[in-house]
């Protein structure tokens, strides 16, 4: 049965109803038995309706008086007795109803019914986000910006209330329930055809894995964005065919690798994540000796990368078992000790080190380590891991050279992969290229467009590019350069650069303008505001497309071909 709030009412009201029925019956029967007199003194027996009428207005404390004739004393005695039982019956009923309205379970049922209605009426594309916190808040904002609706399941009622207070437009339905229960996921619409994705980025990997498993079983076509921090879990998620696995540590390690080897690629990545523009300082890690504080999950990834790129590094770790797990390499050494200690830092050679990376999972420790290091060696480059989003302003004012923000990385990765999948693909393909390629592309983008180009994704199908679709259906050949033609003069070009072409299962980086377009191609453009506008015109407007394609104005009334 779907509507459980109604059933809760019925079940709770069963006793009060019974009490009211029985008390009424007793009172009515009494009046039927007892004889009264009419105005002339003749005996008068109350009819059933008379008795019912009297009890009805007396029990509800309205009290019209003694009808139809003045009562005898026998009747009055019965009337006073019946008032006690019927009025009590009524109060009992009303009291139960009122207490029901304050009942937590009942209220939650009503909330649930409301949530279900909202989901049922949701006709746009939407994603389900599990858990509400600052990170998911940011994801919701970005999704709504792109016209993607969101639905949230949150276990904690207070947090759900916080979300309601945020007043997102359009509204974000929120369900208070266990995030891993298949029931809650179903209610949130996992099985709906317009549900495009599900985001689960909890701290615990096991919870994330469980959610991934449940949702894949419920709907195998849904796109999942799941956080994982260990290789073991990543493997498990891959076995489940999870599309987006967000591992902040592996993202950081690839960023470090880029910063060491190909800083221009990192710059591109930061531009796509909207963290920096293309003319910003190149985020490079200088060569020299590094000190890394903390050999945990992040330290481990740094170790791998430094080993690969042959960088001299000295690790400092306080926990004994972690120190013992360390494999000493040619240029990689470890010291057991508290990195926040001045003497320890001096011992590991902070004075001649080029950079210090503070990678513990405690923000205060990280900041304090860097402050000490900076005092000992003012020229040292500082790199830090930031765990909590709240501490952002402190980190910003601490004048640190490079900040790895765990939460921001997660937000960027998941939103990009869910909302603009092509740019995610682009980043992944880019990271395999070399520095020279990256530098060329950055130069090209700045010279052709500007220092902060916009990204635009276009799918060649009936909905998003009807004109191109029709032309291709009629077996016309269209080249990719069509999109960069200016609508003022087609001989000139707009500031548009195709970055990625996805055809079938394959993607091609930087396709040339002579490439022929197929139906169902997906293209990622870098462009400016004007270019974006004109791409939309060309793909959707009959006249503009005709002009861009043939160079003639389309005639609609005379000389129509």
């Amino acid at each position, binding site marked *: 049965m779907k509507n459980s709030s109604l059933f809760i009412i019925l079940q709770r009201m069963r006793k009060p109803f019974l009490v009211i029925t029985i008390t*009424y019956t007793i009172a009515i029967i009494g009046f039927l038995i007892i004889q009264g007199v009419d105005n002339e003194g003749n005996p008068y027996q109350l009819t059933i309706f008379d008795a019912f009428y009297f009890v009805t207005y007396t029990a509800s404390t309205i009290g019209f008086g003694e009808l139809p004739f003045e009562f005898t004393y026998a009747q009055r005695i019965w009337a006073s007795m019946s008032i006690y039982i019927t009025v009590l019956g009524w109060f009992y009923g009303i009291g139960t109803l009122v207490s029901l309205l304050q009942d937590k379970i009942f209220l939650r049922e009503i909330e649930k019914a409301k949530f279900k209605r909202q989901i049922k009426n949701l006709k746009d594309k939407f994603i389900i986000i599990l858990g509400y916190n600052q990170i998911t808040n940011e994801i919701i904002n970005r999704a709504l910006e792109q016209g993607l609706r969101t639905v949230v399941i949150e276990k904690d009622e207070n947090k759900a209330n916080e979300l309601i207070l945020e007043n997102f437009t359009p509204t974000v339905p929120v369900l208070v329930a266990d995030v891993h229960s298949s029931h809650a996921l179903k209610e949130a619409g996992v099985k709906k055809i317009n549900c495009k994705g599900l985001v689960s980025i909890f701290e615990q990997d096991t919870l994330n894995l469980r959610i991934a498993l449940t949702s894949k079983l419920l709907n195998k076509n849904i796109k999942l964005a799941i956080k994982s921090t260990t290789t073991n879990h990543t493997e498990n998620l891959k076995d489940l065919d999870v599309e987006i696995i967000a591992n902040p540590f592996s993202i950081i390690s690839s960023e470090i690798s880029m910063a060491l080897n190909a800083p221009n690629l990192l710059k591109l990545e930061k531009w796509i994540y909207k963290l920096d523009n293309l003319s910003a300082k190149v985020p490079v890690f200088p060569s020299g000796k590094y000190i890394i504080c903390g050999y945990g999950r992040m330290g481990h990834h740094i170790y791998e990368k430094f080993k690969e790129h042959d960088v001299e590094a000295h690790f400092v770790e306080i926990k004994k078992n972690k120190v013992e797990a360390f494999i000493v390499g040619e240029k990689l050494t470890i010291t057991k000790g508290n990195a926040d200690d001045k003497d320890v830092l001096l011992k590991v050679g902070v004075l001649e080190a080029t950079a210090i990376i503070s990678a513990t999972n405690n923000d205060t420790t990280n900041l304090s380590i860097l402050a000490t290091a900076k005092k000992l060696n003012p020229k040292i480059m500082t790199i830090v891991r930031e765990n909590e989003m709240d501490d952002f302003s402190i980190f910003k004012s601490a004048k640190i050279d490079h900040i790895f923000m765990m939460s921001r990385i997660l937000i960027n990765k998941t939103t990009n992969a869910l909302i603009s999948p092509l740019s995610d693909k682009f980043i992944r393909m880019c990271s395999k290229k070399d520095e020279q390629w990256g530098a060329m592309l950055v130069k090209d983008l700045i010279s052709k467009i500007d220092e902060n180009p916009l990204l635009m994704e276009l799918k060649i199908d009936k909905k998003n590019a009807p004109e191109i679709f029709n032309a291709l259906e009629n077996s016309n050949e269209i080249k990719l350069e069509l999109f960069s033609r200016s609508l003022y003069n087609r001989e000139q070009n707009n500031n548009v650069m195709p970055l990625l072409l996805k055809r079938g299962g394959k993607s091609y980086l930087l396709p040339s303008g002579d490439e022929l377009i197929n139906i169902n191609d997906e293209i990622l453009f870098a462009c400016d505001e004007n270019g974006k506008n004109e791409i939309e015109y060309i793909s959707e407007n009959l006249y503009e497309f005709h002009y861009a394609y043939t160079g003639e104005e389309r005639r609609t009334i005379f000389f129509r071909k």
Partner: protein
Amino acid sequence: MNLDKVISGFFIILAMTINFGFFYGDMDSLETHSKYELMAAIIINLIATTLKLGDKTQMGSVLLATSLVADIQLIVAATIWAIAHYAFVVDKEIVAIIISLSGGAFLANLISVILYVGDTLKSKR
């Protein structure tokens, strides 16, 4: 033995029997139909309905539905009787309406009893 079953079975069957008692008799005069019996039928039916409230099972819902049908038919019959008695005249047509309404309610009661018995026979406890 389950006391709940005894009570609900008692009221469901009593609703039918009392209703039959009112219904049985001449179709065109009220002389053989007591108004007190109609009142009793309404009350017992209401109690039977209340006892069935909030049962989420399939059987519970159907039982509730039949009970509601009987309630409505009987209450409508009583209302028509009262209105005709006080405001108009109780003629043959009104009598026919009252009795046939209670006949309909009796059918609903009968269905509910049959379902109840069937459910009881199916039960393994």
